[in-house]
C-alpha cells in the first residue's frame, strides 16, 4: 500500500514538468461529429503524447461564433458559414471536411418496418399539407403496405441543430413552397409539429407517440433500433441511409467540389445516393499564431490517413478518395 503511494508520488513528480511542456489545442462546435472527434483526439494523443486536444460539443452556431472571436484554436460545424459571416471575420477561415453523416425520417407505425417516402411528401408533411398517413401521396409510394387511418404527429428539433440544417436544406431543394415559406437554418419557424430537445428528445417523442414522424441522425436511429424510412432520391430510386449510400452521395458531389468545400450534398444525383446526407467541417484559420498551425496540420494529415479508417465503426462515412486528396493539398497551406 505504502509503496504504491510512493510510486504514485514519484510518477506525479515526473509527470509535472512534462505536463508543463504539453501543448494543448482547444476546439468547440458541432455535436453531430462529437463521437468520432473524441475518438480521433484520443487516438492522436496516443500517437503524440505531448499534444492534448480538447473539444467542447456546444453546437455549430457556438463553434462558428467562438472561432470568429478566436477564443478557440479550431471550430466545427455541420452547416457551412455564410458569405456574410465569413466577411465579418478578421483573417481567412478554411472549411476542412472530415466525415459524412445522414439524417433519417424516423417513424412509429405498428408492424410497418419499411416505410417509403419522397422529398416532396416529406416537405408537405412538415408543411402541414399532408396530415394523415392514408394520404394518396403516401399510399402511392407504399402500395402493398396497410397504412393506419390516423393523423401524423410531426416531431422536430426544438433546439438549434446541424441536423435540422441538413434536413431543411434538403426540403428547400425539393419543395419550392418550403423554400419560400420556411427556408434553411439551424432553427426554423416550423409550420406544424412538436419540438423535442436533441436527437434523444425527438427519438423519445417518436418512440412514445403512435403514428409519429420525426427526423434524427442515422447513428442515433441505428443505436436505438428506431425504424426509419427509405427516401426517393433525385434519380427516382428509393434508398435507405447507410454508409454506402452516403458515400455515393458524396461521390456525386466530389466531381464538382468547390475549392472552399462549402457544398451541400443533399438531393445528390446518382442512383445509389442517399439524398439527406451532409459533410461536417472543421473551421481552421489559414494563419495561426504560436506555431499552432504546424500542430493542426500534423493532426489533419493523420486524420486524413489513419483517422478515416475509424469512421465506419461509429456510423460515419469516410471522405471519398478524390475529396481526401484535395483536402490533403489544402491543409498544406495552413500556417
Amino acid at each position, binding site marked *: 500500500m505504502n509503496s504504491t503511494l510512493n510510486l504514485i508520488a514519484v510518477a506525479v513528480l515526473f509527470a509535472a514538468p512534462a505536463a508543463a511542456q504539453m501543448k494543448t489545442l482547444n476546439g468547440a462546435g458541432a455535436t453531430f461529429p462529437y463521437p468520432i472527434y473524441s475518438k480521433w483526439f484520443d487516438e492522436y494523443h496516443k500517437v503524440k503524447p505531448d499534444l492534448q486536444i480538447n473539444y467542447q460539443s456546444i453546437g*455549430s452556431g457556438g463553434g462558428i461564433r467562438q472561432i470568429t472571436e478566436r477564443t478557440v484554436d479550431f471550430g466545427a460545424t455541420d452547416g457551412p458559414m455564410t458569405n456574410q459571416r465569413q466577411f465579418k471575420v478578421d483573417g481567412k477561415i478554411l472549411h476542412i471536411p472530415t466525415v459524412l453523416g445522414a439524417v433519417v425520417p424516423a417513424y412509429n407505425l405498428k408492424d410497418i418496418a419499411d416505410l417509403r417516402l419522397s422529398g416532396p411528401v416529406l416537405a408537405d408533411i412538415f408543411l402541414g399539407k399532408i396530415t394523415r398517413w392514408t394520404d394518396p401521396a403516401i399510399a402511392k409510394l407504399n402500395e402493398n403496405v396497410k397504412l393506419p387511418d390516423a393523423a401524423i404527429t410531426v416531431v422536430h428539433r*426544438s*433546439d438549434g441543430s446541424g441536423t435540422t440544417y441538413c434536413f431543411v436544406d434538403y426540403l428547400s431543394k425539393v419543395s419550392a413552397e418550403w423554400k419560400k415559406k420556411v427556408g434553411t437554418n439551424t432553427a426554423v419557424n416550423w409550420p406544424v409539429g412538436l419540438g423535442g430537445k436533441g436527437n434523444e428528445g425527438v427519438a423519445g417523442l417518436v418512440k*412514445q407517440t403512435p403514428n409519429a414522424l420525426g427526423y434524427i441522425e442515422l447513428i442515433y436511429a441505428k443505436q436505438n433500433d428506431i425504424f426509419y424510412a427509405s427516401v426517393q432520391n433525385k434519380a427516382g430510386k428509393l434508398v435507405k441511409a447507410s454508409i454506402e449510400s452516403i458515400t455515393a452521395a458524396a461521390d456525386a458531389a466530389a466531381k464538382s467540389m468547390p475549392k472552399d468545400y462549402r457544398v451541400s450534398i443533399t438531393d445528390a444525383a446518382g442512383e445509389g445516393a442517399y439524398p439527406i446526407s451532409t459533410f461536417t467541417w472543421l473551421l481552421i484559420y489559414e494563419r495561426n499564431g504560436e506555431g499552432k498551425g504546424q500542430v493542426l496540420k500534423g493532426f489533419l494529415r493523420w486524420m486524413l490517413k489513419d483517422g478515416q479508417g475509424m469512421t465506419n465503426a461509429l456510423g460515419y462515412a469516410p471522405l471519398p478518395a478524390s475529396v481526401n486528396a484535395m483536402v490533403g493539398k489544402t491543409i498544406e497551406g495552413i500556417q
Partner: protein
Amino acid sequence: MVTAVFDRARRVPGSRERAGDLLFRLTISGVAGIILLAAGALAWQLARESASTWKSFGLAFLWTSTWDPVSDVFGVLPFLYGTAVSSLLALLIAVPLGVGAAIFLTELAPKRLADILMFAIELLAAVPSVILGLMGIFILVPGMRALGAPYGVGMLTAGLILAFMVLPYITTITREVLLTVPRPLKEAMYALGGTRWEVVRGVSLPYARSGIVGAVFLSLGRALGETMAVTMVIGNTPKISASLLAPGYSMAAVIANELAEAASDAHLSALVAIGLTLMVVTIVVNGAARLMLYRLGSRK
C-alpha cells in the same frame, strides 16, 4: 429607548467608533454593494446585447407572435403566454394542495406523522428539476395520453410538473407561519366554542395570510424561471392555443434550446431580449409581492 441609542450610534460614527467597527461596517456594505452591482450589471448587459432587437422591432416585440430565425423576424408573445399560463396553472393546482397540507400538518396530524411527512416534503424540494422532467416524460406524458390528451406533452402537463415542483415550498412556508400563530388566540376561539374549522378559518389563516402570500409569490418566481423540466414536457411549439392540452413554449425554454446554435446576430439578440423580458417579468412579480405584503402588514 434602546432603538434610539442604536440609531445614534449608527448616525454618528465620530470618535467613539473603533477602527474594527469601521472596517466591519465597510466590509459589510461592500458585500451588500456587490449584490446591487451584480444585479445592475446583469440588467445592463442584457439591455446592451438585445439593443438591436429593440431597435428593429420596438415594443411590438412584446405582442407579436412570429418566431422565424430564417428571416430574422421575432416576437415574444407565444413564449410570454406559455410562461404565464403554465406558471398560473401550477399555482392553481399547488396552492390549495400546499395550504391544505400545511393545515393538516399543523392542526390535525399527530406529531410523529407530521415529522415524517415534513421530512418527505423537504426531500421533494431537493429533487433536481431535470429528474422531475424525466418523471414527466416517462410517467406524466404517457398518462396524459392515456387520459385522452392528443400528444401527452403540452401546457397542462407543464403546469402539473411545475405544481409538483413548487408544492414543497408552499407547504413548508405555510406550515412555518401557521406554527407562529399564538396559542392564546386559538385557545380563546376554542373557549368560545369554535370548531377546528372555525379556528383555522377565523384565526390561523388570517394571521398567517401575509406569509402564505409570500410563499405563493416565491413559488411563482420559481415557476416562471423553470427551464429544464418545462422544456421536456411542454411540446416546444411557439403557438398560442385555446386548449390547455395543446403544446406550447416558455421563455426560459426557448433560450436554453436555441442559444447554442443561434448563428445570426439578430437571432442571438432576440434570445437575449427574451431574457430581459423574463427578468422584467420576475422583477414585476416580486415587486407586486412586496407591495401586497406591505399592504397586508400595515392593515394588521
